[in-house]
């Protein structure tokens, strides 16, 4: 696909996306743009369609209507090369979803070897570097079942990074963690953001969103109610729904 995409255009462009599961409409016309290097946080009550939106960007879930473009490429074009998309977009899940029969290192190495067909030695060097980057040195040969939730989640982040994505999607990555391990995962994400990685986070960590986010979106019942940079969003929310939500959380 030759699409003339230049870095000054939105790296992710979402326009009027609708998505239903059977009779239930989860997304009712969502639009948002993410620029390269930007960190976007999506917050909102559970069931408001945040996770579904992330899954749509990665083409894990098809949409009913609208358009999602990643680097200028329409995601829901039937002729889309899903592999190309998934090389660009990394995703980290709430429940980590590591491959339980592979060690931490093998988890990180698997996709580059089998999907990208890169040479094993090169991949291993990169994977060890990534494990180090997420501060898990010494845990290379541990199986997921032997790691804490926070450690597993950091392996999952390393696993996604091994594909050298342009965009990272984080789907409530700290929601299943113990409070004391939340921090170690957030530190890893913050470092990524500081390095200029484009990130989209669905999160309940308001403090974190405020600290690392360049732009905050608040969703409720399938629509974006309000958005803005954290400085104005958290202090001057105009919509009563946003204010009600924030007052519960903060």
């Amino acid at each position, binding site marked *: 696909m030759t699409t003339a995409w230049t870095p000054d255009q939105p790296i992710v462009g979402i326009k009027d996306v609708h998505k239903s599961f059977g009779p239930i409409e989860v997304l009712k016309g969502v639009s948002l743009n993410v620029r390269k290097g930007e960190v976007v946080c999506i917050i909102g009550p559970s069931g408001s369609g945040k996770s579904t939106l992330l899954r749509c960007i990665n083409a894990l879930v098809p949409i009913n209507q609208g358009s999602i473009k990643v680097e200028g490429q329409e995601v829901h074009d039937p002729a889309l090369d899903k592999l190309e998309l998934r090389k660009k977009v990394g995703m980290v899940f709430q429940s980590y979803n590591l491959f339980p029969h592979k060690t931490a290192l093998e988890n990180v190495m698997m996709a580059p070897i*089998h999907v990208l067909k890169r040479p094993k030695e090169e991949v291993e060097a990169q994977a060890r570097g990534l494990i180090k980057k997420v501060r898990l040195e010494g845990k290379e040969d541990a199986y997921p079942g032997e790691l804490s939730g926070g450690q597993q989640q950091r392996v999952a982040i390393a696993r996604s990074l091994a594909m050298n994505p342009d965009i990272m999607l984080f789907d409530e990555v700290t929601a299943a963690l113990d409070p004391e391990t939340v921090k170690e995962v957030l530190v890893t994400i913050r470092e990524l953001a500081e390095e200029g990685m484009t990130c989209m986070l669905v999160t309940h960590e308001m403090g974190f969103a405020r600290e690392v986010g360049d732009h905050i979106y608040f969703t409720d019942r399938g629509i974006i109610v309000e958005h803005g940079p954290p400085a104005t969003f958290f202090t001057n929310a105009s919509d009563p729904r946003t204010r009600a939500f924030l007052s519960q959380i903060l």
Partner: protein
Amino acid sequence: MEGLWDFLRSLHDAYGINLVHFYDTFERTRLLRGMWTTIQLAATCVVLSVLIGIIGAWLQGSRFKILKGFVQGYIQFFRNTPPLVQMYFFYFALGPQMPRIENEYGIAQPMLGSFAWAVISLSFFAGAFNIEIFRSGVEAVQKATVEAADSLGFNRWQIYRLVVLPLAVRVCLPALNNNLVNLIKTTTQAYAIAVPETLYIASQIWSDRINVFEMMVTLLTFYLLLVGIFVWLMTRLERSLRVPGFGQ
């Protein structure tokens, strides 16, 4: 060895315990050959039926309804009819329909012999059960794990081969073990189509030498040993596949 044979021979003379199939070279050779045939038959069927199980379980996840229906029909047919009748059907009904080929003496003979038909029928029989076993294992693999592989760009076959199957195998190993033991025991049915396996040879020896009881004890010991060794191997496999922190 000679000393042992002499001792067994003396048992016959003194107590009438007829272990001729041990001390007589001819009987011993043919019995050992029968046992080797049983081992070959069992090993081939185990491998083929596991392959059928893996491929069948993969096909059951297919999007084509006709293909799924076909696999389902195969499973139900082979699960709910007697394996012996299946074997007769293959050997006596399908066998003659096969083209005949000339052997080195220029005599036309069936393309597939009784051993080959026994392999085919027993593998299909056990394979039908194996598909169901692997499928229950596949269903036990979390959807989220599959989704993660999907999001990393693995294709459908890669996901099955690298993620789903390795996990499914660990879940369904006990059931698989059960079914394969059953398969090994069922190889005795090949007796009915004159495959020269252990039971068949044993029955020849006991009709020639009138030592039914001694032969029976030998036979049962052989099969208990065979099953025992197989179970031991499977336990070792299970242990080597064990992943710390998974599945307990």
